[in-house]
């Protein structure tokens, strides 16, 4: 009797568990992963909720920098702003969860490469003429920066707030000691890195965030674009397996595999700050990173005059000398905000010349407004280098709805390939092509 009722209960419990298991995989986990409650709609009473991306040296640092700026906004307008700063590993998932559930903040920072993808969800307010006027007009923005706001030919659903670009940072003393000049081609970069690398002392020529899928996907794009490859066709279908992209990714992987100028440990670096820290502490002579690395370098104790920056070099026979994507952060307003006017006022404030100048330094960002000087550094040479890269040698990542899926699938496939190399395996061009085919199939399955 006892055994039977116990068994009946077991069946019931088991069925229940099985069912919950199936459910959690598609809905509950989304909530688990965001690790905290999300305030919906800013409460309506004139207040705003703002999700900021991590731009400074840490999330706390971001709060310190932003709090007085937001307090000044509240003083001017009487609108209180509730701030949450979100790290890069979580931001995309958090935004997806917000879109899916409708439990969203009023204003959010997005990686500008996601703009067209997020636009496709319909969850973000388009900046039509009226909205654009409310934030000071489209003319105030640098054209290339504003072009990242959404798909071509549609009203953008985001506007630029921080401009960023990749550069090759080098440690002046280390290159000088090895007797090499700052590189101007990919080949020179590799030989300079080899001249510095000494695994016995733990010093390497380059440090990469090889475990970060966003960083990896950026270099898949830049290296592929240098070879003249396109990631999507005109209909928005993925074309990841083009020769140029395969060769470009292989070239980037070979920095660890064949050239051996990258510490295999970098395969676990899931955050660009880890690679920057290696550079700032003399474990790596060069890094490929965006101009906001400045704050982290200084925080790690490396003086401003100890490093220089050149554009990320292309191979000598490259079809294009592109050195960066048009990187940066955009501001978006969720369509279901209760406080559209307040949100527009806030976006206008954040993209005003005063706030741009105020935040340019602590976050080491490039201005997104025309006729504004770069304030992220006192080093005019550095400012000029980055302004030149941003204005003349950057191309936007494809402005198609599936762009974020490219970052996710190709970036994570590259994580795996770096892991294979780091653990003693080899990755051939065919392996790269096969991995890209898988990524392409995954994206195609959802594009339809």
């Amino acid at each position: 009797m006892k055994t039977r009722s116990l068994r009946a209960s077991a069946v019931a419990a088991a069925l229940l568990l099985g069912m919950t298991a199936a459910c959690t995989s598609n809905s509950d986990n989304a909530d688990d992963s965001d690790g905290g409650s999300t305030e919906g709609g800013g409460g309506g009473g004139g207040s705003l909720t703002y999700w900021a991306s991590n731009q400074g040296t840490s999330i706390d640092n971001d709060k310190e920098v932003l709090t007085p700026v937001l307090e000044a906004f509240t003083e001017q307008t009487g609108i209180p702003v509730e701030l949450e700063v979100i790290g890069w590993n979580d931001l995309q998932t958090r935004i997806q969860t917000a879109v899916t559930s409708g439990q969203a903040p009023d204003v959010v920072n997005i990686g500008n490469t996601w703009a067209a993808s997020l636009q496709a969800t319909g969850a973000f307010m388009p900046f039509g003429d009226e909205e654009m006027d409310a934030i000071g007009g489209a003319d105030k923005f640098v054209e290339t920066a504003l072009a990242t706001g959404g798909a071509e030919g549609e009203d953008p659903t985001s506007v630029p707030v921080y401009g960023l670009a990749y550069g090759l940072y080098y440690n002046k003393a280390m290159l000088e000691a090895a007797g090499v000049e700052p590189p101007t081609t990919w080949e020179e970069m590799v030989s300079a890195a080899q001249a510095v690398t000494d695994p016995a002392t733990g010093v390497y020529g380059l440090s990469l965030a090889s475990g970060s899928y966003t960083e990896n996907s950026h270099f898949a794009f830049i290296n592929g674009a240098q070879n003249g490859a396109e990631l999507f066709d005109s209909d928005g279908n993925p074309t990841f397996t083009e020769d140029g992209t395969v060769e470009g990714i292989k070239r980037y992987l070979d920095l660890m595999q064949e050239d051996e100028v990258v510490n295999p440990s970098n395969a676990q670096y899931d955050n660009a700050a880890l690679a920057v820290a290696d550079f700032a502490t003399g474990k790596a002579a060069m890094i490929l990173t965006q101009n906001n690395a400045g704050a982290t370098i200084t925080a790690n104790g490396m003086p401003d005059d100890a490093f220089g920056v050149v554009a990320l070099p292309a191979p000598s026979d490259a079809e294009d000398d592109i050195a960066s994507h048009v990187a940066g952060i955009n501001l978006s307003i969720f369509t279901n905000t209760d406080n559209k006017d307040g949100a527009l006022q806030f976006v206008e404030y954040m993209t005003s010349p005063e706030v741009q100048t105020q935040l340019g330094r602590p976050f080491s960002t490039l201005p997104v407004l025309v006729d504004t000087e770069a304030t992220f550094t006192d080093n005019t040479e550095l400012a000029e280098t980055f302004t030149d890269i941003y204005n003349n040698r950057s191309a936007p990542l494809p402005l198609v709805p599936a762009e974020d899926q490219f970052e996710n699938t190709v970036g994570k496939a590259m994580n795996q390939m770096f892991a294979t190399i780091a653990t003693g395996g080899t990755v051939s061009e065919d392996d790269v092509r096969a991995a890209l085919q898988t990524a392409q199939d995954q994206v195609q399955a959802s594009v339809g």
Partner: protein
Amino acid sequence: MATTAVSEKDDAGQEQRPPARPRRRSGWWWPYALLAPAVLFELVIHVVPMITGVWMSTRQLTKFFISNWTAAPGVGLRNYQVALDFDAAVGEALLRSFAVTCAFTVLVVLVSWTFGMAAAVVLQRSFRGRSGLRTLFLVPYALPVYAGVLTWNFMLQRDTGAINHILVDNLGLIDDRPFWLIGSNAFWSVVVVAIWKMWPFAFLMLMAGLQSVPQDVYEASAVDGAHAYRQWRSITLPMLRPVNIVLVLVMFLWVFNDFNTPFVLFGTGQPAAGDLISFHIYNATFLTWNFGLGAAMSVLLLLFLLLVTGIYLLITNRESRRA
């Protein structure tokens, strides 16, 4: 949590069943009234989302419809076709993840049960320090999952982790620092962490089960000359059979569905060798915003677990009837 549910239902079941029930007495509705909130919440929290999940699996629920998902067009069984087409990328990855999860589950359940049984038997006899050991063994179970697994994540780092520090620097067993969280070692890392997390549960259940085995049976068998192993095989195991049947099933379901361990241990790293199925479905869904496909994979997982559970209970039922 499931254990309390089981025992409560057991007790309730016995109370509700008087020897004879001639006619309805006043207050007959009382148990139903008491159960009603539970049934209601069960419907709201489990059944409705589950049906929604099945419905979602027949839709092309991509980002274009995500903010108005009832408008997503129906695609019939196409999502299932994609998930089960093992020659194409999506299906092949799902199959590989399924195989990894099966191996993971067998290892974790087997080892956790063995550890739990050994510890429960050893701690059955009273000796000085027994309660201290019991408490110590239960620590991994009591620790919040995130804190525990995150600590493992730190320990398993290649350059700064305690494991490599001990293996390479202190003991000198290996020259080259191995990676534990990427590459093929990732499988063993997630197995070890899952066992660490799971075995105290087996220990707790078996320890509780052992309390109900009367001491005089052991004494009688000792008089007949039975040694410790013989006692375990002929007395302990058969007496614990009902507990074991539930324990193994519950552990199987938990371990097979484990999401937190790989999620916290690997983060966005997601190595192929540690690609457990819940984590895989989550990634496949959020990777491409293809929630219809993710729902189809979840339904397939549900069907598989139901099938295994059904077969398991059928076999254990038949065996106990024969016994």
